[in-house]
């Protein structure tokens, strides 16, 4: 729930008052408009009143925003199954969005701490704090709708099943590898590792560990807690676990790197908008004819309106504000490019065969989709499920071309968005990995390899 509108003091019109810079004007306008909006409250109301039964017989978005859309399986699905696939698409997309918004909460705090330490960015810091508060509500709503929907569709069926390989148990207590782990007794090696990371980053960053070090990270350090990291969402997956602390510290160590975080956040904003705008338009079309509007459709609609403020902030900081600060050191430029490159490869480097609007190959979707085909929604036997999965993932169909159109639209927008960031390598500025990943042939090849590699995992899930 957002708090009442706070009045922003107007600047005196004396001749001595310095003119507001473009980024200050934009920050103040965005903050004022966001504070006055009530979109987050609308999302909270919709979440509280959500019951799957009241929404189950309606599409929540255009039919092409459905799992398996354009595949032969989709064509021969029943109306009830098609509705289920449309609803599960929403749940899947917003599960990923929730994880990426959790990244935003952490790194908003880290980078707001930098702007606060530098000083002079009070309105921007207030806007970031407001956005963080809104992200909490968004995530809760996405989880709540996802939870109730899956419960209603699958009941007590096990739809969260572990990946059957590489499971670590109490009898296998190996630790994740890290470049700073030393196996010696009687010292707090975790803390030592954190200190080593800090020293390295301070040395390599333009902030030099001075007055621009994040207030938030300073507070975490003072309370004896470890450097915070996340392992899900776009930024949780973009670097290996052993480097994630370095990434957090980098974002918190200098104004340039803090601003660069908003470049990645802008990329995530654009990726989300590529499909969320379809829900927005769907909502409008229902509204115009006075039809019933499903609660998840309305949540998407208000979320897009809320996120429009966040997108403006991301754009403002990553494209404009960073010019106010020292140029990046070679380390900062390298780190920014590596993070962007990895983000491009992981989130934009492929073409899903079964989820329009998703630009990754389908390795992470194979087991969950197999389970959906085995569930009561489709009720398939093991061999039938494998057959349809193979047809959908590894054979060309109309869905590839539908997703290809989404890909082209997004590629054009991404290139426009990042063309002015001269510190990015050409492969990043021109979205080279994304452009190469839009190939149907590459998608088929990658999915074939993954499908064959996962046969043992499917067989294990088939056991009673």
């Amino acid at each position, binding site marked *: 729930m957002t708090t009442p509108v706070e009045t922003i003091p107007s600047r005196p019109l004396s001749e001595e008052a310095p003119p507001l810079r473009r980024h200050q004007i934009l920050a103040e306008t965005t903050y004022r408009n966001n504070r006055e909006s009530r979109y987050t409250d609308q999302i909270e109301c919709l979440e509280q009143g959500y019951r799957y039964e009241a929404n189950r017989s309606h599409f929540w978005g255009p039919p092409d925003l459905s799992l398996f859309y354009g595949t032969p399986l989709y064509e021969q699905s029943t109306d009830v199954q098609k509705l289920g696939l449309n609803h599960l698409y929403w749940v899947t997309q917003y599960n*990923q969005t929730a994880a990426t918004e959790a990244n935003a909460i952490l790194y908003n705090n880290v980078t707001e701490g930098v702007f606060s330490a530098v000083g002079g960015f009070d309105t921007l810091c207030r806007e970031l704090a407001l956005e963080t508060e809104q992200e909490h509500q968004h995530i809760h709503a996405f989880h709540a709708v996802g939870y109730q929907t899956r419960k209603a569709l699958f009941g007590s069926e*096990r*739809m969260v099943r572990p990946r059957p390989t590489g499971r670590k*148990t109490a009898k296998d207590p190996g630790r994740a590898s890290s470049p700073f782990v030393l196996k010696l007794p009687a010292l707090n090696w975790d803390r030592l590792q954190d200190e080593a990371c800090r020293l390295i980053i301070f040395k390599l960053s333009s902030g030099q560990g001075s007055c621009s070090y994040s207030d938030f990270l300073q507070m975490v350090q003072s309370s004896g807690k470890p450097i915070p990291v996340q392992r899900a969402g776009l930024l949780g997956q973009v670097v290996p676990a052993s480097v994630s602390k370095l990434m957090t510290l980098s974002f918190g160590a200098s104004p340039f790197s803090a601003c660069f975080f908003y470049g990645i956040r802008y990329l995530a904003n654009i990726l989300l908008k590529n499909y969320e705008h379809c829900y927005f338009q769907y909502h409008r079309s229902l509204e115009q004819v006075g039809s019933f509007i499903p609660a998840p459709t309305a949540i998407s609609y208000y979320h897009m309106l809320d996120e429009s403020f966040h997108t403006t902030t991301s754009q403002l900081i990553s494209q404009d504000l960073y010019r106010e600060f020292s140029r990046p050191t070679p380390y900062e430029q390298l780190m920014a490019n590596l993070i962007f490159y990895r983000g491009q490869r992981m989130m934009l480097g492929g073409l899903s065969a079964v989820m329009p609007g998703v630009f990754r190959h389908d390795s992470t979707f194979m087991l969950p989709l197999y389970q959906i085909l085995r569930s009561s929604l489709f009720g398939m036997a093991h061999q039938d499920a494998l057959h349809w999965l193979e047809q959908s993932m590894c054979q060309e169909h109309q869905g590839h071309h539908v997703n290809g159109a989404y890909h082209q639209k997004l590629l054009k927008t991404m290139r426009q968005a990042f063309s002015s960031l001269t510190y990015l390598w050409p492969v990043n500025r021109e979205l080279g990995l994304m452009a190469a990943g839009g190939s149907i042939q590459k998608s088929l090849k990658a999915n074939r390899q993954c499908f064959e590699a996962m046969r043992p995992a499917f067989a294990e899930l088939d056991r009673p």
Partner: protein
Amino acid sequence: MGTVITADAIDTWLIHYLADLLEMSEETIDPTSSFQELGLDSSLAISLTGDLEEWLGRRINPTLLYNYTTIESLSSGLAQEMAAARS
């Protein structure tokens, strides 16, 4: 819920929950393992938030599942947040 839920109680609930999900005995679940090491994917966050809220009878901060990546740290983080909310 009137009673105070401790980190130990949350720990016990989580181990029981995950043992059931993973079809393993509770003794073989290491509370210091990350959810990722246990083989669980990001869709766990949806189920775990919902089931934890049903058990606790209260809303929880949904980012806990992203910020705390092991059973042990999640139990302790959640207990701390609940204690802070009471005070």
